[in-house]
């Protein structure tokens, strides 16, 4: 259907559909960002219960004088590959949590993942949140930042130890997780903590379903990352995600119609 030889002079083989889809999403991202820039009304985002629960958890931490623990998993803060989005979304929620802790006076402990290259952005986000609340002096790196390397079960054991010795009022875990982070989540639960978390890495989702009081399911992680910032550009660009989803359902419907008309949909999509 397509003049492949002609297209391949300008584009790599099998990338036509990719570029069309990307342009489609990109146009909507730019459209909504521009719209937000003009001060247009932001799209309404449905409530994500886990976000409300974070405020409740921080309040509880102040009440019972136990810390809030945050982690990204043993190596969950990827910045150099396709998992970077999950890190950025997690950082958005972390910034919100740290801000609440600083404002209400709860102690925040951050068990950093074993990705050393991510440390600048991880620590930077914590500093930024404290500084926004004007309480930078309350943040002590040596006291509140922990590092154990990236060994999976070494990390879970170290977390469990920290929960037992220092106490835990709320445990939040986001970022790309392996399934064995279940041990850390359950250890927090057994210590009586409110457990909140979620991941877009579907294989590990069960750990959260079984242990968390409040969940971010799959893509909710990304939506939450934008939502909590209150940044109009980020919230408004969420609408472009919805457009992409409509497009996916549309392509599915189109595929069914074309296949019924005996047109080879799979071959068309290979372009």
């Amino acid at each position: 259907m397509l003049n492949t030889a002609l297209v391949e002079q300008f584009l790599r083989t099998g990338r036509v559909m990719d570029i069309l889809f990307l342009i489609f999403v990109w146009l909507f991202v730019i459209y909504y960002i521009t719209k937000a820039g003009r001060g247009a009304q932001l799209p309404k985002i449905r409530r994500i219960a886990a976000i409300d629960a974070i405020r409740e958890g921080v309040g509880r931490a102040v009440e019972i004088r136990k810390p809030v623990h945050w982690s990204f998993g043993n190596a969950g803060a990827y910045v150099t590959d396709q998992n970077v989005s999950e890190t950025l979304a997690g950082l958005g929620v972390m910034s919100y949590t740290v801000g609440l802790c600083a404002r209400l006076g709860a102690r925040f402990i951050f068990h950093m993942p074993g990705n050393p290259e991510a440390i600048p952005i991880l620590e930077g986000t914590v500093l930024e949140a404290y500084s926004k609340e004007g309480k930078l002096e309350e943040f002590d790196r040596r006291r509140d930042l922990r590092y154990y390397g990236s060994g999976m079960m070494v990390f879970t054991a170290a977390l469990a130890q920290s929960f037992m010795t220092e106490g835990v009022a709320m445990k939040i875990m986001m970022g790309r997780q392996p399934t064995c982070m279940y041990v850390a989540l359950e250890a927090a639960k057994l210590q009586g903590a409110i457990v909140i978390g979620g991941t877009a890495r579907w294989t590990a989702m069960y750990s959260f379903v079984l242990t968390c009081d409040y969940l971010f399911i799959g893509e909710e992680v990304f939506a939450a990352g934008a939502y909590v910032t209150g940044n109009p550009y980020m919230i408004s660009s969420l609408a472009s995600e919805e457009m992409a989803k409509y497009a996916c359902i549309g392509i599915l419907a189109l595929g069914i119609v074309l296949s019924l008309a005996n047109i080879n949909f799979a071959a068309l999509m290979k372009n």
Partner: protein
Amino acid sequence: MSTTIRRDLPILLLAIVGFLYVAEWFFGGNVIPQLSTFKGLMGTMVSVIAWTAVGVGTIYGISSEYYLVRRNRNWQQYVTSGSMFLMMIIMAIIWIWQWSGPGRAVGYAFQSPEWRWWLMNVYSNQTQAQYAIMFLYQCGAVYRVLRVRSMETTVFTLAGLAFILKSIPLFLTVPGVSEIGDWVQGAPTLGGTRAATLTASLGALVIGLRALVGKEQTTIEVK
């Protein structure tokens, strides 16, 4: 000036590298081979940057442990933190001592009998013990969570049970167990997994695009 150097230039750098990666995806290979060369080189360079930064994490790890010792001056803390420092020293000594030698490759230390002893007896058993604990924790969850309380927990319980029964040799002798397990795995699970992967990818994609145009707050406002 300060904002330009501290914030704007890094964002610009991010966007340039990011856009070149995107361009390579569509126009690399035979169309513009230089883009693929750039991506190949940049991939390894980013790895080298990450490897070089490993000490930052170690410094943070040591300093927070040292802080704990200073704050809690009791014998239990000395023993706990001391065991960590001692272990680091032992491994460092083995590594330097066994780094290489006549007829050995550089980095031989990881294959040396001394390193293997610690790996296979100490690290490996600690890790396996944690996995075993994970199973016991999950037994607790099986009893506590898998109850037919709501639509979600009912589906979770039934689907999980179908797969567990299918995976246990003893239950495979019961007619129908294998077929039900296969169906749960092959139809509803596949559909759910497919959709969850797809939507998560769209979410990730939009964050990527937002960061490329400099509107992702987490990459902008970092102290």
